[in-house]
């Protein structure tokens, strides 16, 4: 990041090659529109080039920050367009396009992320369906707790409890991921 702040083009390309697919995939999961996901990803990386100082190292790890920026920007776009995304799991077409393991520019990072992805998917699969549902509606669907309650016709208190319990379990199950780089 230090090199990026010094406008090092090579450092910037390296960051894109490492995390470009991840940013794009996160935006695509929220937006469900490849063209929009591409536009949003471009905007995020161009902004990173223009204002690398917007990442404050003390506040967390770079990839956590970058993923959050991608998710938040994609959700803003969904809200601005007044669209309501559904939260269902990846469509068959998307699954067909899953990037094959080992097919990446940085094989070591790819292997690490593949292992982390496996842990995250397993942790989500372990959650009771109603807890997983509210967490995915919040994170990928961009809905607030109240909006989730309205969508599911459930009391707000129930949604809050499901989110808390689900995230509590996730924090435990994801400890191997969140306590290690790069997340």
């Amino acid at each position, binding site marked *: 990041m230090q090199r990026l702040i010094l406008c090092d083009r090579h450092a910037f*390309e390296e960051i894109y090659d490492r995390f470009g*697919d991840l940013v794009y995939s996160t935006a695509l999961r929220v937006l469900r529109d490849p063209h929009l996901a591409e536009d949003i990803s471009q905007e995020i990386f161009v902004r990173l*080039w223009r204002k690398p100082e917007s990442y404050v190292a003390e506040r967390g790890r770079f990839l956590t920050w970058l993923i959050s920026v991608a998710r938040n920007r994609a959700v803003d776009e969904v809200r601005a367009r007044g669209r309501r995304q559904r939260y269902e799991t*990846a469509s068959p077409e998307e699954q067909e396009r899953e990037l094959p393991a080992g097919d990446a520019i940085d094989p070591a990072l790819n292997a690490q992320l593949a292992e982390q992805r496996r842990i995250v*998917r397993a942790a989500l699969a372990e959650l009771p369906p109603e807890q997983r549902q509210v967490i995915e509606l919040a*994170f990928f669907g961009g809905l607030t*707790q109240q909006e989730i309650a309205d969508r599911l016709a459930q009391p707000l208190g129930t949604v809050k409890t499901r989110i808390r319990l689900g*995230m509590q379990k*996730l924090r435990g199950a994801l400890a191997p991921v969140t306590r290690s780089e790069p*997340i």
Partner: protein
Amino acid sequence: MDCEQVKELLDAYALGAAEPEEAAALEEHMEDCARCWHSLSEAQRAAAAIALSATLCRAPDSLRRNILAEVERMQRSD
């Protein structure tokens, strides 16, 4: 908002699911509570990790091309 209320809201906030006014109150509390800030960082890391459950897709080649072209334009105009 006190630490106990923050604790109740932390996960929803990390998932981006807090109502705007709740989020603002939590952020105000965070400005001078290091302990809650630490808990929030943990919750945010867990929330960001959820993104890894998304199908990993190859970004189109045009994305890299367009980003680098834009960067080059900005470098030239500096």
